[in-house]
């Protein structure tokens, strides 16, 4: 038996809740694993970036749930907000990737030669993932902002709401 329209919308709305819970949970796990915060240390920045990229899978899934819910529910405002978030994310990831590369060079010099190759492999994986996620975020931002225009509420034409009549004589003169 097919679900009613309102039941379907309620179920799709649950995707928002699931996505939000997943994101909060993953961010809390990430925060506890990188605390105490020490942004001035290159080693800490390098490790934090690696741990953040390690959380990519559940965060990506949560992101997909939210996007699918917005698309299928036709929430234009949500698409615009989420598109903006992804634009910031794409730029932020690119900036962090540059800093990560510099930190990796610095951290590598502090390691014994035996550990350097393993560290480089890990850094390469994290960098590739950051680049892929940045490109994906940029594409999503553009796509969401473009598609959200279809869901804008129709605006009334500008001008006075009064209907102004025209004198028949004036009409004939013109």
């Amino acid at each position, binding site marked *: 038996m097919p679900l009613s329209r309102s039941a379907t919308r309620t179920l799709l709305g649950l995707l928002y809740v699931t996505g939000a819970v997943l994101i909060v949970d993953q961010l809390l796990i990430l925060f506890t694993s990188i605390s105490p915060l020490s942004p001035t240390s290159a080693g800490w920045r390098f490790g934090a970036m690696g741990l953040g990229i390690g959380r*990519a*899978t559940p965060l*990506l*899934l949560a*992101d*997909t749930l939210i*996007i*699918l819910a917005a*698309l*299928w529910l*036709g929430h234009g405002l949500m698409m615009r907000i989420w598109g903006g978030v992804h634009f910031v994310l794409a730029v932020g990831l690119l900036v962090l990737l540059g800093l990560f590369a510099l930190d990796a060079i610095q951290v590598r010099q502090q390691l014994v030669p035996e550990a350097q190759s393993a560290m480089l*492999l*890990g850094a390469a*994986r994290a960098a*590739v*993932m950051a680049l*892929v*996620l940045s490109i*994906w975020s940029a*594409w*999503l931002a553009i*796509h969401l902002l473009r*598609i959200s225009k279809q869901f804008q509420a129709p605006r009334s034409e500008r001008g006075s709401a009064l209907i102004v009549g025209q004198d028949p004589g004036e009409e004939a003169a013109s």
Partner: protein
Amino acid sequence: MNRSGALVCLGTAVILFVDQIGRLWLALLPLNLGNEAWRLVSIQLVATQLTPTVIALVLLAVGLTLLGRSLQILGRVLVVGALLFGVGSVMLIVGTGTVLSDTTLSSPESFRKASMQAVGSLVVGLVIFLWAGVTFLRLPPQHEPVVSEDPAEP
């Protein structure tokens, strides 16, 4: 909306695959096929990565199905293949357990815990496989010509 949803599902699936391959590549290197312990640990690692791989496969199938009827067939084949992969993984894990019970490797507690984690992940993955498989196989074909029941309509 279906096309956008399909593209989002496909993109997410591809990134998940890239992530899983990267993790496995990082964890399994350097390759040491001659070492029995390395082989057993590798099997466990593959099993623990199974759940995200299953989710990626399901997303891929959903994306392909949303794109059209001909691709829906591909989605079904994909899910059936995924089911076989899941069953094969169970057999691998059972086989590993049997091997471990006869060797000294089964004694460390940490190894036992890792095995339990692998089996847990495998069960979750298998449940998703089964759900996706049954759902996709019961889907009606999409994009078929709509036949009107009203004789007045052409």
